[in-house]
Structures are given as C-alpha cells and as structure tokens.
C-alpha cells in the first residue's frame, strides 16, 4: 500500500526527528492501573479478527483477546478504533497502550515498537477453485491472483510469484466479492477467511492450494516498558497454556492455533 508506507515513513521520520522532545514516560502499567482502564488499538474492519456484530458492537478474536486481557488486569477496556497503517503511530504517540490488531511480528516493526510473545499465528494461503491444478508458486504464472493491498500476502507474492498477475483490492470484503462474481479464480488470503468467502457463492468453493509464510501475531507495546511487557508476556503464556486463547481462536476462525509451537517461539 503506497499510501500506507508513505504514512509510516512520515511517522517514522517525525518520530526520529522529534524523539528527543518526548518526555520520559512514567511506567505505563502503573498508569493503566491508576486510570482503571486500558486503551487497546484494534482495527474493526478485518474479519474475523476485528469486526462488528449485528448490533454494531465490536467483536472478533482480537476484540475478545483484548477483553480477556483487560478483565485479567482488573481494568476496563477502551477500544481505540484504528486502521491498518495507523496501528503503530497510535502506540508511538500514546493514543493507545497496546495494539491487538492482527499485528504480525516483522523486523521493520520491531525497530519502532516492542512485541509481546506471540499469541496466535496467521497462516496465509493461496486458494483456488476446487480441482484447479495449482500446487506451487510457478503454477501461478500468467494467472490473475487477488490480494489485499499492503498485506504480507501482497509483499510475499510480489517477490515469490513473479509470473503471476496480481490484482490488488482494498479490503477482504471487496476481494471476496471479486472472487464470488468470477472476476478472479485465485486469491491469496488468511486461511481463516476461506469458509466465509466460499459461502458467498456456493458454486465457487475455495480450497487452500499453497501454504505461504506463517506470521506470528503479537501484542504491540511502546518501547521501554519493561513492566508492562513482562506482565503481557506472562499473561499470553498463561492463557496459551490454559487454552483460553485457543478457544477464542477456534470460535472465530474455526481452526486451532499451534499452542506448543507458539509457546516455544515465545520462550
């Protein structure tokens, strides 16, 4: 996403230029407890992580993770609605205490914010119509493949499937419609979305063809918050072990998260 990366650049540049001006921050964990509420940035337009229910109340796996975290911390949850490109600026400028919004751990992001240990994984796949002969990236040569602009799938396919013709859409819903209406036959997206997209048009059922890079999702925090980071890390590990995070994931995504693997990655 051109615009998004430009925004990040602006944010990064201004952060870099102006960083010395930021006052030394008191401990955020203490602040949260004192205020009795935690502000969590969530994008509510990425189903099934963050979305709205039929009464337009926030719901989704990231929303439930945030609710559980706030409950265990004994404070009230305030959801700060955000968009994909502004998740990190929200943290940097203290508009939110945490980001729980399909935030994959990437080295670029780790330069500007801290990540907790992973709480879920985010496998993405290239999916196609049932029976279509696709098993490796080179099978995509000359074919139209739909992706959502600026996602990790977009970045990966741009590098790995050079022969493919990428069609970029603004969000999942638009891409789903493009598939259902037959404009594209192959899409690259999160595995968890396949059932929902298939349901749009029963005559066009999707099946996963190629499993792409799997990212770990983590909770984002401002840098230099050792107490908060330690608390969040302990909380994630405890809730991976007791299965509560797995249950949330199962409820919204219909698949299990690899708890053991996540714990190992986070140790």
């Amino acid at each position: 996403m051109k615009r998004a990366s430009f925004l990040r650049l602006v944010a990064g540049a201004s952060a870099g230029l102006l960083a010395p001006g930021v006052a030394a921050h008191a401990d955020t964990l203490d602040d949260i407890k004192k205020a009795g509420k935690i502000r969590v940035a969530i994008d509510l337009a990425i189903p099934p992580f963050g979305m709205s229910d039929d009464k337009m109340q926030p719901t989704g796996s990231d929303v439930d993770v945030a609710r559980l975290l706030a409950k265990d911390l004994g404070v009230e949850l305030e959801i700060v609605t955000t968009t994909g490109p502004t998740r990190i600026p929200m943290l940097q400028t203290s508009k939110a205490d945490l980001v729980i919004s399909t935030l994959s751990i990437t080295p670029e992001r780790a330069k500007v914010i801290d990540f907790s240990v992973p709480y879920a994984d985010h496998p993405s796949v290239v999916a196609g119509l049932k029976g279509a002969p696709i098993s490796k990236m080179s099978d995509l040569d000359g074919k139209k493949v739909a992706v959502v602009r600026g996602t990790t799938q977009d970045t990966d396919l741009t590098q790995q499937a050079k022969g493919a013709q990428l069609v970029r859409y603004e969000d999942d819903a638009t891409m789903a419609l493009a598939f259902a209406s037959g404009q594209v036959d192959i899409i690259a997206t999160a595995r968890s979305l396949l059932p929902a997209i298939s349901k749009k048009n029963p005559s066009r059922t999707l099946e996963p063809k190629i499993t792409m890079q799997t990212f770990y999702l983590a909770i984002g925090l401002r840098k230099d918050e050792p107490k908060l980071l330690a608390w969040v890390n302990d909380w994630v590990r405890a809730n991976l072990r007791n299965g509560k995070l797995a249950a949330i994931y199962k409820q919204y995504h219909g698949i299990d998260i690899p708890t053991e693997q996540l714990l190992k990655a986070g140790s």
Partner: protein
Amino acid sequence: MIKLSATHLLYLVEAARWTILLSLLAFVGGSILGLPLAVMRVAKSRLVRVLATAYIQLIQGTPLLIVLFLSYFGLGILGYKLIPLVAAGLALTLYSAAFLGEIWRGCIEAVPKTQWEASDILGLNRFQQYAYVVLPQALRIAIPPTVGFMVQIVKNTSLASVIGFVELSRAGQIVNNSTFEPFVIFACVGAIYFVLCYPLSLAARTLEKRVHVGR
C-alpha cells in the same frame, strides 16, 4: 457472515453525524481564516502578500491526509495531545482556509477596478471600500465556487478516518467487512452523501438568486 439489517443502516446514519460535524468545522474554521487570507493576498504590502501566498501554496501542495496525520500524530509526538476532534478540526480548518482564501481572492480581483477607483474618489477608506463596495460584489461571484468547494469538503471528511474517526465512509467499510455486502452498503453510503451535498447546492442556487436581485 452477519446478515445486513436495519441496525447497520442506522449505524451508517449515526456515523454521518460525524461527517456533518467535521464539515461544519471545516466551513466555519475555513471561512474565519480564509477571508483574512483572501484580503492578505491582495494587500498593498508585499510582505503580507508573500506570507499569505506561502501559506496557501504550502497547504494546497500537501494532501489533506498528510495534514490530518501530522496534526494528530505529528503534534502528538511533539507532546501536544490533541483529541481527535480538535486535531481534525484544526487540519480541516487549515486546509479549507487555504482553498477558500484563494477562491475568494479571485472573486475580489474579479470586481472591476473602476469600483475601487470610484469608491476612492468618494473618500472611502480601505475598510469601507471592502465592506460597502468590493466584498458585497465579490460575494455574488463567490457563491458557486465556494459551494463547489464545500461539497468537496463534505466528501473529504472521509479522510478523517485515518485518525480514528468512524465517519460515513469508514462506517461503510466496517459494515461491509462484517456483512460482505458491498453493493448495498456503498449504495447507501453514496445516497447519504448525496442527501448531505444536494441541499447545499440547492441553497446556493436560492442564495444566488437573492443576491442577483439588483441585476
């Protein structure tokens, strides 16, 4: 996926209230700052003209998205914690003032020079010339382009979603991503924008007729 219901449409209408509020902020703030800018652009002093021109060029050359972004996150980094409404109001004011200033400058200059000369001879000072002779005539010329710009502002407020506003466009996106019904939803969003913008154009036509009464 969730079925589209009346709740969703209500949600869109409620989000439209933000669109209206943001537009009003832009109109009012932009006018308050824009009129002095327009007058500065045609001032006798070169320095004043240069200052106004520099401001207008700077803002007109910057996307509104970036102005919004900087007024919210940029000032945030500097330690000024503006609430989103203030940040959006500030950005929209700065933005529309630059455009309205330039539009109105054109309108002031479109008033024939002879009007200035005639009012000079009548012994009016600069303020009186503006108040009684030039601005009333400029107003008539200014209505169509001003309304055109206001209609644009209504739609440009959608950019405020970048700083966390759930206004009409963003609300449409959110509903679409829970229901996956883009046609219905964006048709509704479009219809609501039309309902907001069309009365503006109508009002402009009425106003134009009223001020043309002397012709």
